[in-house]
Every structure is written in C-alpha cells, then in structure tokens.
C-alpha cells in the first residue's frame, strides 16, 4: 500500500510515530532518547521522546516510540523538593558519557491515581537521568536514600 503522503515525513532523519495521547507525531532522530536498559518493568522498550505539556506547566510526557499507549508523566524533581539530590553519580556519568554536568537532566516519574489527580505522587527513589548531549538515559534506583517512591506532590485536600 502506498504511504499516505500527508503522514510521510519530509525529513529523512525523522519518523512518524503513532501515540495514544497525541495521535501521530513526527519525531526527529535527534529528539529520540534511548534508555538502556529500559525502565524497570518495561525493559523491552528503549526509545522515548519528551513532549512538553505546555508553557505554564511543569510537566512533560515521556512517550514511548515503540508502544503507542506507553507514556509517563514526568517532571523536574526540584519542583517537588528544592534540595533533591540523586547522590554520587560518577558511575552513571561514565555510563551515559556525560561530559558536562549541564547536559545531565534529572526527571522523576509521576503516578496519578485515576480520578484523584490531587493525590499524585512522585517516584523520588527511581529518578530518570538523561544525558541531553547524546540523549542516553537510565532509570537510577536510589537504594540507600531517604527518598520515597511515593512522595506526595500536592497537599492533601481539606
């Protein structure tokens, strides 16, 4: 079957990806973030793209390029805890080939209970580290840290 011209990317360095939340999106090669290994529980999926939620919003979507309905809501942990630190990162710096610390982006995954967005929590124990220069990422697990995997983001109602 001939490809739909409207959906065929013009740039050879890009690809059209189907997503559940955003429909078909065009992703350039230089936007693809590779997690190796994949996120825990999703080890078979490696390629993701970050999509900003909006100018006024601190949230981002981490959308899988391999599974259209796999997407995480993520945010900068400093919005949640201003003094958040992932601890010693020499190993991960080497692994992700981080040359400048400015290239290292830290994000945490949010869990939003259906129908109770107010009760959303941030997984501060399993942050995502991304080298923005080569777009390689990894989920760290901070085993001996004071952080919770279910850190409340918004105050409880009432």
């Amino acid at each position: 079957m001939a490809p739909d011209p409207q959906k065929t990317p013009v740039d050879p360095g890009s690809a059209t990806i189907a997503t559940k939340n955003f429909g078909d999106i065009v992703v350039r090669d230089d936007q693809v973030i590779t997690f190796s290994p994949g996120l825990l529980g999703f080890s078979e999926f490696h390629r993701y793209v970050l999509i900003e939620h909006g100018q006024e919003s601190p949230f981002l979507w981490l959308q899988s390029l391999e599974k259209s309905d796999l997407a995480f809501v993520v945010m900068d942990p400093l919005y949640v805890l201003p003094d958040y630190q992932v601890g010693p990162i020499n190993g991960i710096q080497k692994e992700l080939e981080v040359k400048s610390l400015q290239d290292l982006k830290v994000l945490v995954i949010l869990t939003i209970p259906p129908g109770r967005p107010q009760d959303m929590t941030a997984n501060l124990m399993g942050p995502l580290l991304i080298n923005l220069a080569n777009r390689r990422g990894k989920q760290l697990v901070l085993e001996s840290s004071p952080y919770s995997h279910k850190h409340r983001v918004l105050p409880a109602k009432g």
Partner: protein
Amino acid sequence: MLILTRKIGEGIILGDDIRISIMEIRGKQIRIGIEAPPEVVVLREEIYQRIQEENLRAAGVRDVDLTEIAKIWKQKKD
C-alpha cells in the same frame, strides 16, 4: 531452579561477565559480592519490585487530564 552449594570465598559465574561470590556468613545473614557490567541492573529484590510496580502504576495512567493537574499546580504556587 539450579541450586549450588558454595563456601566462603567461592563464586558463581553467570554468562561471561557476571560473578557472584560469597563474602561472609554471619548467623542468618550472608554477604554476597557481585561483579557485573554497569548496564546490568543489580538490586535487592524488594527494591526492584517497589520501583517496577511504581513504574507500572505510573504507566497505567490513561488519558489523564494533565491540564487539570497543571491548574491545581498553578493554584498551589500562587
């Protein structure tokens, strides 16, 4: 399941580049040394499960109205 008996100082090799060795036995506790390439995830089982389950829960969010949450977020800040 493969079950092996090892003494202190002895090891087990998994594949070409993972080595597990018995460091110390103290009562009911055993200290285990693990040498593995950095890309291999090595975690205590209960921690692994905790993060894995949280990832699964986070990914289970469907058609979430993030705009609503962003609004709540903004109110909180103001």
